[in-house]
């Protein structure tokens, strides 16, 4: 299977700043990839490189088998892009705006009405974009990225400014695209949201790719402890550190909950002991979240072991 997006040792400098440093990655079709990093970590630069809007200082970029910066536009017709804080000409209506972009992609303008319905702008299609709220502009941005059933979608912070209901329908659309075999790359700060949706997570920090793998892979690599919250009657709470003490560290959350941090492989042992002691009211297992993983990979880069 050939990758939709292929980066080989890509470096991009802006003056003295290295926005992207020696990044290599290959994204296959039908995969949703989360691109995670602080502001200025190089996420937007990576996307611009994939779009061919900027040239790499070193290395090669291939998107759908083509160098996007070479001036050949066949690949761009099958590519959808939603920039961070998307902007449109405020004087035109949503329908006119989409018609313009559809023409540039040589897609039938007549189909744009359906697309507007799909992102929930059907009723406002003939209003000027200038009267739109931030959320509505974001929907229009998504609509233009969806023109022509793209094989590659690059979405830069797509869910900022969307309300929860809209986020949900947004991820449904992403799901559909992926099922059709599109590669979806989305950057976001809302990490917990991406956790269940992305097959792969790429973590960037100061231009360097510090992690690239599935959430489970990253969990294994990071060896982050699992947190187990044990609720028990107040009088037996004090005893908990004694029987889990040798395994993990305990922390009292409140009057009847203790949180125990243990390694992944000792999780079952703690469960066994809780059952054996019998004084446990309730028990929650919290695996490390994407947030924890993210923090871990950033830390491990700052302080190389």
């Amino acid at each position: 299977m050939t990758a939709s997006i292929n980066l080989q040792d890509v470096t991009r400098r802006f003056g003295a700043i290295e926005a992207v440093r020696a990044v290599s990655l290959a994204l296959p079709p039908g995969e949703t990839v989360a691109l995670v990093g602080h502001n200025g970590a190089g996420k937007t630069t990576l996307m611009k490189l994939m779009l061919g809007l900027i040239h790499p200082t070193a290395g090669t970029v291939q998107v759908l088998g083509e160098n996007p910066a070479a001036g050949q536009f066949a690949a761009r017709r099958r590519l959808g892009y939603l920039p961070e804080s998307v902007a449109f000409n405020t004087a035109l209506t949503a329908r006119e705006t989409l018609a313009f972009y559809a023409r540039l992609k040589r897609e039938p303008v007549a189909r744009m009405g359906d697309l507007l319905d799909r992102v929930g702008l059907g009723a406002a299609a003939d209003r000027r974009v200038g009267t739109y709220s931030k959320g509505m502009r974001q929907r229009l941005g998504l609509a233009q990225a969806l023109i022509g059933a793209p094989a590659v979608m690059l979405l830069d912070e797509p869910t900022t400014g969307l309300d929860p209901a809209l986020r949900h329908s947004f991820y449904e659309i992403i799901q559909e695209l992926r099922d059709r075999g599109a590669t979806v790359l989305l950057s976001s700060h809302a990490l917990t949201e991406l956790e269940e949706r992305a097959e792969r997570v790429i973590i960037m920090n100061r231009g360097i790719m510090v992690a690239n793998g599935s959430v489970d892979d990253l969990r294994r690599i990071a060896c982050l402890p699992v947190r187990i919250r044990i609720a028990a009657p107040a009088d037996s709470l004090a005893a908990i550190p004694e029987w889990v003490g040798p395994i993990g560290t305990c922390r009292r959350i409140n009057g009847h909950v203790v949180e125990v941090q243990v390694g992944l492989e000792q999780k079952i042992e703690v469960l066994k002991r809780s059952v054996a002691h019998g004084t446990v009211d309730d028990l929650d297992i919290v695996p490390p979240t994407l947030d924890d993983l993210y923090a871990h990979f950033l830390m491990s880069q700052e302080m190389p072991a």
Partner: protein
Amino acid sequence: MRNILIVAGKEIQEGLRNRWVLATTLLLAGLALSLTFLGSAPTGNVGVRALDVVIVSLSSLTIFLLPLIALLISHDAIVGEMERGTMLLMLSYPIGRWQVMLGKFVGHVAILAFATVLGYGAAALALALTGAVVDAASWLAFASMIGSSILLGAIFIAIGYLVSALARDRGTAAGLAIGIWLLFVLIYDMALLGLLVVDQGKIISGGALNALLLLNPTDAYRLFNLTGFASVSTFAGMAGLAGTAGLGPRVLLATLAAWVFLPLALATFAFSRREL
């Protein structure tokens, strides 16, 4: 080619929606009509040559107004879209930067041409309706005045793009545009006049003067309209100059065309090298 037309179509659509087209047409028509009727009053009963007088006053108006309108439309075209973020999205589509530039150019020139033809045409029509007799030579001079006015507008649109492609932000572009307008429309001629007075014909030859006139597109435009047609030049007070200028209409037109092409080519080059 199709991409160019798509972008041009969008620019025209925006121009119509922003009332740019309407405002420009009304402004040009209003000024042209008032010049036609008020401007001919001092000459008394002008009779047969009424349109020639209009050509003289309209071309003077054009030199001030059209470059200003053209720069107003164009100085924002690149840097403004970049600042607003709309350029980033457009360039992620299958379209080249030179196509964006040429598309905008076609669209903006079309807007300006529409306004000029309609605005100045209204003046000529009103004159014809009042019963003034206009001969074929005058119509030809009027038509070439409209044509060269559009060309002058195109020149300043191209210059505006160059400014827009080079400027770091919109404010700088606007300032530069105003500076360029002042330079070409006011300062250049005053400086040239001062130079000639000081020089007293010692160093600056006729050839050098011609070259200096061609270096300013508004001067080339003025010469083209005021000396190109015998009937007009008598009213313009340029009859003497017309004989000695040594710059035929072909040279002047070629100069005007070069003034469109060069800034546009430079602007396209600057835009293609610009980082987003």
